[in-house]
């Protein structure tokens, strides 16, 4: 680190005259690192393991982007953000992109001036209750105490749901997922609500996951995806098409196992364009032609990332559901690479 923090601080006056914000992609390349905002810890999506390595589904998106732009999937600086700090961190340029289970909503897109670059997980808010409670539907939760993790759209959905069904409840807002678990397991709340994927992830960490059920009602649409600042479309394109490349790779059968082979050239023109052996898609995007190869190599295609982090083989055990390829009846549908 040449420009040490200290010298940076003492020569701040000199820095102050710095030019107006340059294009994010140039900043990232100059820095040699991608600053990626993630959650402070949600197993399966983004959580540091015992060695301090970040792992998870959202983390894989950051790594793919870093691989595409910088050629190194480890050149990512993970910035943990809370529900409160994530938007400021992005708006102020502290992070280049935010991959933190963030729901794409109108006001975030339009009013807060962010650009959602796609959807990497179609989620919905659900409820988890202890089996012993004998509840089989969220509509039976009249008068229940419900734990919510604050700083999400969850509170609003919850209020809407109970108002719509004209039943009462008592919210218990909790700051971190770990504390919400503590409250829920101690019986301080009857139900825990958050995104269904988060519920599954949380349940997976319980001692006896089988004692808890996730209720069938999904009370909201939660399209989660990475987002970038408004007004820098070039950078937005990089993130958008990296995500699309991961999705398209699964559809086209490109995996981390066969990618070297396929990158040598295949007879499928779309695969060739994606992997840079045909056409100049990479240059159009402002990176080189192997960008997608590197992005896919970083953690595999969408299906591989899903299976490794949150799929049915993992303790979290999420089925593909809505997140299957459109060819399998899901909603994942990458625009064509041409």
């Amino acid at each position, binding site marked *: 680190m040449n420009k040490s923090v200290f*010298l940076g601080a003492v020569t701040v006056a000199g820095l102050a005259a710095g030019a107006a914000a340059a294009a994010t992609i140039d900043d990232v390349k100059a820095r040699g690192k991608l600053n990626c905002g993630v959650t402070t810890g949600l197993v399966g999506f983004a959580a540091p393991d015992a060695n301090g390595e970040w792992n998870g589904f959202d983390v894989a998106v950051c790594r793919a982007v870093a691989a595409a732009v910088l050629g190194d999937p480890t050149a990512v600086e993970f910035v943990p953000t809370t529900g*409160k700090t994530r938007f400021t961190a992005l708006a102020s*340029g502290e992070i280049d992109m935010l991959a933190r289970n963030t729901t794409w909503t109108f006001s975030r897109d339009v009013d807060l001036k962010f650009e959602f670059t796609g959807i990497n997980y179609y989620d919905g808010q659900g409820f988890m209750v202890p089996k012993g409670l004998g509840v089989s539907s969220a509509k039976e939760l009249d008068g229940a105490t419900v734990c919510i993790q604050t700083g999400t759209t969850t509170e609003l959905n919850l209020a809407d749901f109970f108002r719509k069904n004209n039943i009462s409840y008592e919210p218990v807002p909790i700051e971190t997922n770990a504390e919400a678990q503590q409250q829920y397991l101690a019986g301080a709340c009857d139900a825990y609500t958050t995104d269904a994927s988060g519920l599954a992830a949380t349940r997976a*960490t319980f001692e006896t996951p089988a004692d808890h059920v996730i209720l069938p009602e999904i009370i909201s649409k939660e399209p989660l995806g990475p987002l970038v600042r408004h007004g820098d479309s070039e950078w937005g394109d990089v993130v958008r098409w990296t995500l699309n490349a991961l999705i398209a790779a699964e559809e086209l059968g490109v995996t981390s196992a066969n990618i070297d082979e396929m990158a040598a050239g295949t007879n499928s023109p779309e695969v060739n364009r994606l992997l840079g052996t045909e056409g100049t898609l990479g240059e159009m995007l402002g990176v080189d032609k192997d960008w997608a190869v590197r992005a896919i190599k970083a953690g595999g295609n969408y299906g591989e990332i899903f299976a490794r982090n949150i799929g049915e083989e993992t303790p979290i055990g999420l089925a593909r559901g809505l997140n299957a390829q459109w060819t399998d009846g899901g909603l994942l549908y990458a625009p064509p690479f041409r």
Partner: protein
Amino acid sequence: MSDMHQHSIRFVRETMLPQAAPPVAERGIVKWMRENLFSNLANSILTLLALLAVYYLAVETLPWMLNGIWDAPSIRACREILDGNVGGCFAVLTDRWNQLLFGFKYPSEEYWRPSLAFLLLFAAAAPVMFFKYLPGKLLIFTAIYPFLAYWLIWGGPFLAPVVALLGFVAGYVVWNRFVTSSFAAGFFGAIAAAAVTWWLGGVIVDAVAPENSLLPSVPSRDMGGFMLNMILGVVCVSLSIPFGIALALGRQSSMPIIKWICVIFIEFVRGVPLITLLFVANVVLAYFLPPGATFDLIIRVIIMITAFASAYIAEVIRGGLAALPRGQYEAADSLGLDYPQAMRLIILPQALKISIPGIVNVAVGLFKDTTLVSVISMFDLVGMIRGPILASTDWNGVYWELFGFAALLFFVVCYGISQYSQWLERELTTDHR
């Protein structure tokens, strides 16, 4: 005549009686207990109640502590070993020891660096803390320490802290040279000299610094655990003392504008909770920085906590200034000293001496308040516990051991400092009575 006496008195004791032991109730442990524990009815009841409380506390916690498991990979394994018995899962401490102390991102092969910096802290603090007993020359190490510690903890090119140090040295030399003629010349000359040195040094460091330096650099984002509490506490307290002195002098100043600037700053900062200032550091400050320039969160937090601490220290020092007898000010005036001289040579040395216990109190309070950074997603000791450790599958549900450990760690440090402060207070009493 002489033997009259013998006859008239039948018995004369010529030797002292051997001392009889005092009655049982008036000696040893019984006496002590009578006087201190059972002197009257109310007291006896209080004693019994207190004994009961101690007994219950012991019954509740002792088996838990003595039965503790110190070696297990996860809470489930721990519960299996305990097999239904009461006992603590202290294994979480051994398992996550490094994470608790250094956070989860500090490179593990570099742990010796912050540890060494921590040990050296004692060596650096000793000449200040025990200035009466240690030679003043040792203060040189104290002056070097911040730069050494910075280099040890953050790593990076060795020249960077050296240049920073040289800047201060240059400033000091210029100051020494000119301050005798005029305070202003010394002050501004020192600032100019330091700035020039830093600028030159910055250019040189960038030019010659080797890519792979002796100590690999660690970004500030990777600081965590108790180390982060220590860094924030030590850095902010040391930075806030000079600012606090300036603010206190400003508030006592006869110049209305300067006085009001200081008053507004102090009262504003003291009027809001630290947590709102941390929100500012976290979510608002970025908007006030020039476009494109971003500081690490840790630097922004240091700025806000320093501002916070300066206001409190300023109030303590103002108390010290106000406590000085007017005669001291008048004596300085009658010697013909100008304002900077009077402050430097007469007023501040005395006022600071009076304020030391207060400053130490502020420092302890501030050190405790560094735990609040866990609320803004920084992984200090409490943040590590509430975040990664409690959220992990292995240790989900181990509260008492972790919070107990955190409380103990803070208790040891803060109690130590406050005991030192009391000792110093006795040491510094220079009553003329």
